[in-house]
């Protein structure tokens, strides 16, 4: 018997009636539309989707999604989203966050949510600047970067989000440019499919306060030469001509050219996103040339809610307490007549 056909959504079903208030030309529009297009492909019911955000430009995201949503307080979205998911594991829970929200004020929650591996999805809008407060340096701003709070140049070295995330135990980490809607849509679908906490870093341009921050990597004319788009099980190859690749030289990744020095495609490393040991993934996220994009790590592991569920079932099966009265009247009680 054929299953009842599920209602097929379009992106319009996920578009709320709220006017979008980001600056014209902002990559956030691209991410928003990519998300609205990804959701119909995920096979989830609209009422089962929850977006949670903290504070910042990116955190306006839930208002624009016609799903359940919470726009909360600075840095705390991971805690709130964890509560949503643990309360109802049936929900598809998403966090929209930025570099400041996730890694400055919310740094503690960010590392712990990754450590626990609850089945949540985090979209990290990284624009290496504070936008909503109008242009201060963020934890991903570069040394020397001139901002409103570093007029002579930033002196604080940055985090690499992927490095921090993998160090905190992230099971799924993807990175993608903010100007490639189809790729964003696909990586969000993959993040949804992944069971566990998935983190997608979007290299997002801020047209007002940090314009062009990623243009040398993401611009259409350079991206194929400057990025290596990783796919599980495929050789680490890049370049307009598909003639560049990565090999391991000692303990370092090295860029080689196919055809030079006897290098063939067979010599290139093959991407294994599912490997438990994150060493290679760490090398890939740190790589400055080419910048690794795509799904860098996707290691299947038990989720927190699976562990909790198994324990709860076990305790329930072995417990003599079915109702609270059973507990209250058990053990050391006495009667006063």
């Amino acid at each position, binding site marked *: 018997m054929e299953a009842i056909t599920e209602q097929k959504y379009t992106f319009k079903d996920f578009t709320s009636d709220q006017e979008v208030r980001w600056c014209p030309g902002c990559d956030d529009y691209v991410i928003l539309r990519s998300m609205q297009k990804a959701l119909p492909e995920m096979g989830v019911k609209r009422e089962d989707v929850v977006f949670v955000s903290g504070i910042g430009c990116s955190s306006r995201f839930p208002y624009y999604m016609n799903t359940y949503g919470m726009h909360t307080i600075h840095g705390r979205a991971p805690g709130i989203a964890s509560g*949503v998911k643990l309360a109802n594991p049936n929900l598809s829970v998403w966090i929209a966050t930025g570099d400041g929200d996730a890694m400055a004020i919310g740094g503690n*929650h960010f590392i712990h949510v990754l450590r626990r591996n609850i089945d949540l999805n985090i979209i990290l809008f990284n624009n290496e600047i504070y936008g909503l407060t109008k242009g201060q340096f963020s934890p991903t701003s570069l040394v020397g970067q001139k901002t409103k709070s570093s007029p002579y140049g930033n002196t604080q070295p940055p985090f690499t989000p992927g490095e921090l995330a993998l160090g905190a135990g992230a099971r799924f980490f993807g990175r993608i440019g903010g100007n490639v809607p189809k790729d964003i849509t696909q990586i969000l679908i993959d993040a949804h499919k992944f069971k566990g906490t998935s983190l997608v870093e979007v290299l997002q341009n801020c047209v007002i306060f940090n314009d062009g921050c990623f243009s040398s990597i993401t611009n259409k004319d350079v991206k194929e030469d400057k990025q290596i788009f990783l796919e599980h099980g495929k050789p680490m190859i890049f370049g307009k001509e598909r003639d560049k690749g990565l090999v391991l030289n000692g303990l370092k990744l090295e860029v080689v050219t196919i055809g030079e020095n006897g290098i063939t495609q067979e010599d290139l490393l093959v991407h294994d996103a599912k490997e438990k040991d994150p060493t290679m993934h760490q090398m890939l996220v740190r790589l400055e040339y080419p910048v690794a994009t795509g799904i860098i790590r996707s290691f299947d592991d038990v989720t927190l809610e699976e562990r909790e569920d198994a324990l709860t079932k076990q305790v329930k099966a072995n417990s003599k*307490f079915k109702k609270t009265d059973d507990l209250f009247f058990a053990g050391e009680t006495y009667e006063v007549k």
Partner: protein
Amino acid sequence: MITTKETLQPEVIEAVVIRFVGDSGDGMQLTGTQFTDTSAMFGNDIATFPNYPSEIRAPQGSLYGVSGFQVHIGSVEISTPGDNLDLLVAMNPAGLKTNLYALKPGHTIIVDTDAFSKKNLEKAQYTTNPLEDNSLENYRVIQVDMTSLTKEALKEVEGLDNKSITRSKNMFALGMVYWMYGRDRQYTIDFFNKKFKSKPNLIEANTKVLNAGYYFAETLELIPNAYTISPAKMNPGIYRVIMGNTATAWGFLAAAEKSGLELFLGSYPITPATDILHELVKHKHFGVKAFQAEDEIAGIASAIGASFAGDLAITTTSGPGLALKGEALGLAMIMELPLVVVNVQRGGPSTGLPTKTEQSDLLQAMYGRNGESPVIVIAASTPADCFRFAFEASKLALEHMTPVILLTDGYIANGSAPWKIQSVDDLPEIKHRKTKEVIENWHPYNRDEKTLARDWAIPGTAGLEHRVGGLEKDSLTGNVSQAPENHEIMTRTRAEKIERVKNYIPEIKTEFADSGDLLVIGWGGTYGSLHSAVKQINGEGYTKIGFAHFNYINPLPKNTEELLKRFKKIIVCELNDGQFAKILRINFEGFKFYQKNKIQGLPFGNNELIAEFKKLVD
């Protein structure tokens, strides 16, 4: 060697206060708990208070490593763990030195003389042995070489190392006290059988030592007399002895079952609130989701998420933790989500006195958030009624769609008392506001006309998808709005919603006198002390002194002003520098509120209260 200063005749007494003190490792908490439970089973009314150091394993024999357990038992109503001691059981010199101040003159000390070694005396900073220098001549000192007698009693039990043997000397002391007060040993022997199920030699050893202490006291007839404390007159029912924190946890279990919701706790360990977390993590069989978060903020944040998703959500903390939760609490308040925050108050400010009690977070609970941010604030008054108020906090949060702060304190949280067990069947209904009905133009800020509580549409409900957040909302659509007048409307609406809770809480009642010369006002965990003091002064002929104890702080009961008018003078007694008095002054102009405040990390004593009351009426 045993010496007694005098011989008394056996007597029937109404109540007795005993404190067991010794080294952290001497098992004083267990000894005290056993005496308590046995006495409760016997039918006495009881109240207890443990007093242990904040160090986990303080150096042996040191003054700051002394652990104590105080129990007050009686054939009459017992409402506090007692001020002064009738019996002090001191297992070492440090225990004697730090606790002697509390013993009534002429009353009894039992000491383990074996522990009064040169080394231990030095650690306790005694220059001469108090057992030999006549410094205790105002007391009846019963000197027992308890460690030696314990060893002697166990010489035939096999498989015991020296440590286990010495450690069971607390049971020798307990055996002696059992004989003195005519207690049955069986409850404790049953306890051994259960606790050491897989270690029969420990059952045998502990039973032997308990009996040895008991028979030692009895057959040698060297203890001056045995006291009799008859069962107390208590309301009929099934009882158990319960600690405040356990009662709080159980109140939430009951509320979850009654409301048909799952219970979610987001929490971070903090003294003295952690025992609520410890208790709730045990109850996975009821589907309790207890989440130990990475910090206080994530504790409340996860609870807010769980509340949005439809659970009965709570978070537990103590003073500094409430400060950290402030911003998130404001979020729950503006999102109008049900949430209970338990603050087990301790001495502040900052880290303050983590293991001591205080009531100094009242104003923080009332006002400790940015913006106009009223929430319901209620306070429990005894270890047992922590159950009732945890249930009540949940009910108010769910029915009025608001955060509720439940204040308890270290004194009632760690204290224990008999609790007449409440069947969940007998508890009031909880009607939460979950909605599934898809109606045209529904919006999340649809309100109940009477309470102003909004609807609770949870994720998973088709057709009611909506967004909430920390930005101000349009009063009609719930969409983000910065409109000037709307903000004022929403601010007033949220305040009015809390104000209307007045219509759903009981009126304040007085005890001892409905009107007269002096109204004694208290709130929260001081109930026992204040009740006991007013009762005593009443018994001395001061019949125009009434007592009103507040559990509902925000909003205050409807009839508060009318109550205040019925007395000539009013005194507000608090373990802080006058925070509730401030709240009363703000709300009720034209009254003079006298204050009795104590900020020592300790509960009120009867005598200090009575002296204060007399000053006002004499």
